[in-house]
């Protein structure tokens, strides 16, 4: 790989970009050959442009988004962009795999269910948009949307990205650092106001749990599984063990933690 990779991590130049979209920071870290080239700027712009398009299709906050119009019966699924059917299919699969703990049809105060695909869209959109960055030769990236990210290192000998896991009881501090060479990291928990995760089966917020971090190969599924586990509260660890090929860190409301897999010699991530 390029000469940058043989330097120590502290000397290695990391180029960063950040933009706010969909109410969250989209952060990018780049290192290697194209970290600071016009090609990288172009790839970053492509990522942002695509995420803007995704927001116009899937936003629950925009009255005129495609999925809000679909939910109101103003559009048929066949009239929507193909991405809508793809996201709905993922949501239905996630609902099945989680026994209903994850759903893209969330209960409302008036007793109906509204279409809210945002639990699928964030991870799916970032994973999809990351293809623009994967096209940069000999360049490593870590692309995060609101704390859920996909990491990629082109060379097996290059250092892992070091991902700090926020302490849900004190977000100014970290509770763990996870090295991820190539893979996805997603955390679900008690976010800021107006964004409370509830169990779709009961409409209730979970008890006893503060956050769930899932590390896996796919950000779409790491993000879905973190959310599905979190809303199950005390059952989070048991349920995550039914989902193979994941590592996870659960922080409980009392500050204790559970790591999965529990056998520390067993790691799914290189």
């Amino acid at each position, binding site marked *: 790989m390029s000469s940058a990779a043989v330097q120590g*991590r*502290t000397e290695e130049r*990391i*180029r*960063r970009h*950040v933009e*706010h979209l969909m*109410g*969250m*920071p989209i*952060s990018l*870290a780049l290192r290697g050959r194209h970290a600071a080239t016009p090609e990288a700027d172009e790839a970053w712009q492509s990522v942002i442009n695509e995420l803007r398009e995704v927001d116009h299709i899937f936003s629950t906050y925009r009255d005129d988004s495609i999925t809000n119009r679909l939910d109101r019966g103003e559009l048929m699924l066949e009239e929507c962009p193909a991405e809508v059917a793809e996201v709905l299919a993922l949501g239905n699969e996630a609902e099945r795999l989680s026994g209903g703990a994850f759903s893209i049809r969330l209960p409302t105060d008036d007793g109906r269910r509204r279409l809210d695909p945002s639990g699928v869209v964030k991870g799916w959109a970032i994973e999809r948009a990351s293809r623009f960055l994967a096209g940069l030769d000999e360049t490593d990236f*870590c692309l*995060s949307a*609101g*704390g*859920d*990210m996909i*990491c990629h290192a082109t060379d097996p000998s290059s250092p892992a*990205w*070091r*991902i*700090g*896991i*926020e302490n*849900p009881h004190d*977000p*100014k*501090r*970290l*509770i*763990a*650092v*996870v*090295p991820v060479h190539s893979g996805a*990291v*997603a*955390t*679900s*928990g*008690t*976010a*800021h*106001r107006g*964004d409370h995760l509830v169990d779709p089966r009961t409409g209730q917020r979970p008890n006893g749990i503060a*956050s769930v*971090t899932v*590390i896996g190969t796919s950000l779409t599924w790491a993000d879905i599984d973190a959310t599905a586990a979190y809303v199950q509260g005390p059952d989070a660890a048991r349920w995550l063990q039914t989902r193979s090929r994941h*590592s996870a*860190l659960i922080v409980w409301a009392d500050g204790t933690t559970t*790591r999965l897999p529990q056998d*520390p010699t067993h*790691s799914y*991530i290189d």
Partner: protein
Amino acid sequence: LIDETVSAQSADIDMVSGATVTSDGYVQSLQAALDEAGI
């Protein structure tokens, strides 16, 4: 896999994963500190 519990101050990290990483709290967040440091 998960190294150890560390304080943010001593951690050499590239990105932050957490449920409160929203634009509302961004300015004061650890992620903002990282983003700023790299430019």
